[in-house]
């Protein structure tokens, strides 16, 4: 141990500080980069937990009349899996990416409100742990722990005291309430940062697309989380104060809960997917060696998605029964949102068209993202038409559709982003071969699971059943679906091993390993605490291109 030798070199304390001190540094940090890393690390931890829950469900369904877990446990598994994956995996990860990248990309030294930033993270962290505490404390003093089992959208009146005794539902609603406050804090921070912390020369029209997409995402969080918070407050009033909001016996309405939940729930999908679009919009140009195609249209399409996404919520409720006018409105608005998303897909394709494409791991994930997001969008249009939805609502077809969005599009883009910025965050290069192994394992596993999941849905298999009769034509499909899970798990294992090994023993990456064009690549890897020694000045959308090619800068053409 050389720590005692510090007397010999009083002013150069290069050796690592004691572990406790370093941990204390992480816990009390207000640095946007550290908080970003914490968010992503936290999200991936919960990804493992949520993944185990998914695996439990799939093992239970691998053959008819299986009794791997009890129906009660199965109900808890799908509730916890859904809640975890949305609120404690994807949201923290996209917030983490935004936290880390937005200030770097706009040439700022930190977020606008660093302490609010830390507060939001710890609220989110606390609410996730609170939710999982229900496994040991769901019945409180009765000594019998139980997790929430009302489904991730917790339809009334199942959540009423009568039907959901004990405290498991309270854990669910309080945890989402608290994480909602954290999300609003982060969204406020992102908006304030983007609007007031940009470096000289970076007009709104010169911001990287990732920043634009996160700005619109933050706006949607502001609009969408409020209704969720309000609905959770009403549920608390019902459960604790004896209120009647969702009490159908006293004139309350269960359908109101559905409306309130989905007014939050559908914009939420776009909260999750817009940052994924942002990653694709940064990675695809760099690995195609071309500037992004149609930048202004990309921004316009983003804002259009933001607007339309708040008016499509009731397409989750076609099977509940609405007036013909209601059905028509929500069918048309759902179809309309396919237009700006289609524009985006074509723009990414046009960016790749004629480019010199490098199939490094981030690009592989982005190409898969493009195809899978297209298919997810197509089944989305199918389900968005009410007559079709009457047949397939609540079936495994719906499950396959939204997992195509959340895994096939969002998670693939997240992996692309992690590999792309890993050298910047750690200063080390990740292992390319292991990354490709991760890609192929996860890609095969994803398609085995979610391609074949559409079919039992079409054959009439409803969601959330814990077992099924043999001989309905579902058996083989369910078997294949479960086999895919093991491939995905192996892929995640390769991913984890790769990150840990590269962090410990990767070769130094240098400040700009991809020959990229946005500001974050102009500072050291990992960036110093203050990001930039002097605040950069930009003249175009690709400031590093201008630096590298002074004879042919971008600003001459924009």
């Amino acid at each position: 141990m050389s720590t005692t030798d510090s007397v010999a070199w009083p002013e150069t304390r290069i050796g690592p500080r004691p572990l406790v001190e370093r941990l204390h540094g992480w816990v009390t940090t207000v640095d946007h980069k550290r908080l970003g890393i914490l968010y992503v690390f936290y999200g991936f931890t919960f990804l493992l937990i949520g993944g185990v829950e998914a695996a439990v469900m799939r093992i239970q369904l691998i053959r008819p009349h299986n009794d791997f877990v009890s129906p009660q446990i199965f109900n808890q598994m799908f509730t916890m899996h859904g809640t975890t994956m949305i609120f404690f995996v994807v949201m923290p990860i996209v917030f983490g990416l935004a936290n880390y990248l937005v200030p770097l990309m706009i040439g700022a030294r930190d977020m606008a409100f660093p302490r609010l930033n830390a507060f939001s993270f710890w609220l989110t962290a606390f609410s996730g742990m609170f939710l999982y505490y229900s496994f040991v404390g769901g019945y409180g003093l009765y000594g019998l722990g139980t997790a929430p089992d009302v489904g991730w959208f917790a339809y009334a009146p199942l959540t009423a005291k009568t039907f959901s005794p004990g405290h498991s539902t309270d854990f669910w609603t309080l945890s989402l309430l608290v994480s909602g406050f954290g999300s609003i804090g982060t969204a406020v921070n992102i908006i304030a940062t983007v609007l007031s912390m940009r470096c000289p020369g970076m007009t709104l029209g010169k911001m990287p697309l990732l920043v634009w997409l996160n700005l619109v995402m933050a706006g949607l969080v502001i609009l969408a989380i409020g209704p969720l918070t309000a609905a959770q407050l009403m549920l608390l009033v019902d459960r604790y104060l004896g209120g009647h909001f969702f009490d159908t016996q006293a004139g309350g309405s269960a359908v109101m809960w559905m409306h309130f939940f989905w007014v939050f729930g559908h914009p939420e999908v776009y909260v999750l997917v817009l940052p994924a679009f942002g990653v694709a919009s940064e990675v695809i140009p760099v690995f195609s060696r071309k500037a992004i195609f149609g930048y202004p249209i990309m921004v316009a399409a983003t804002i259009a998605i933001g607007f339309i996404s708040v008016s499509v919520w009731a397409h989750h409720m076609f099977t509940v029964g609405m007036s013909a006018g209601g059905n028509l409105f929500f069918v048309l608005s759902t179809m309309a949102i396919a237009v700006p998303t289609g524009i985006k897909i074509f723009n990414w394709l046009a960016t790749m068209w004629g480019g010199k494409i490098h199939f490094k791991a981030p690009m592989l994930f982005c190409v898969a993202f493009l195809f899978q997001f297209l298919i997810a969008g197509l089944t989305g249009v199918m389900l968005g038409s009410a007559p079709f939805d009457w047949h397939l609502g609540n079936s495994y077809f719906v499950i396959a559709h939204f997992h195509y969005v959340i895994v096939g599009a969002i998670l693939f883009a997240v992996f692309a982003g992690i590999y792309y910025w890993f050298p910047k965050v750690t200063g080390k290069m990740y292992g390319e071969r292991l990354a490709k192994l991760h890609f192929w394992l996860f890609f095969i596993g994803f398609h085995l699971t979610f391609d074949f999941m559409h079919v039992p849905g079409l054959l009439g298999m409803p969601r959330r059943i814990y077992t099924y009769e043999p001989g309905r034509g579902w058996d083989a499909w369910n078997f294949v679906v479960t086999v895919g899970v093991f491939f995905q798990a192996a892929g995640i294992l390769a991913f984890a091993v790769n990150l840990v090994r590269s962090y410990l023993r990767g070769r130094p990456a240098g400040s700009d390993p991809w020959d990229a064009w946005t500001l974050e690549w102009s500072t050291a890897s990992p960036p110093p605490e203050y990001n930039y020694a002097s605040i950069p000045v930009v003249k175009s959308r690709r400031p590093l291109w201008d630096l590298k090619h002074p004879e042919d800068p971008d600003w001459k053409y924009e």
Partner: protein
Amino acid sequence: MYSVIAAETAIFVIFVVAYLFYVGKSASGPTPAVLHAPIFFSVCLLSSSWTIHRAVTALKRAEVGSFARWWLATILLGGLFLAGTGLEWRHLIVDEGLTIRTNLFGTTYYSLVGLHAFHVTAGLIALATVSLFALFGHVKPEHAARVDVVSLYWHFVDVVWVVVFSVVYVVGR
């Protein structure tokens, strides 16, 4: 702050929608006819918007003493409003027998007005904190921008009351 206000607005919108949707749907018990519009206390709250505006303007002109007076007047008016809500609730609970669990009207009424009263309370705490700073001489003209943010929140609380008042005491009856 504008973003926070947007998020808060979304929460209030949902409660207002719930109130309007459930008007007249109560299975039994008192109806909105038992309500009496609290005109005097509403005037108190609304005029506190004007006093806080005067306070911030005074601070911008570096008149710290005048700032403190207008600021305290704002707290007083806000406190009066809160007391008014308390009296009204006391009347409803004791004389009319309407509580949050009586019927659907009670549930929606107390949660909507209560949500607003909660925001008034939060605003009063913020105002009191600033006045504590002012008491010890820590509020100076260069802090006008920060004080302005608090006043923005207070204006929001007032505007919400205009909406809640119209919904509960005008449209809802």
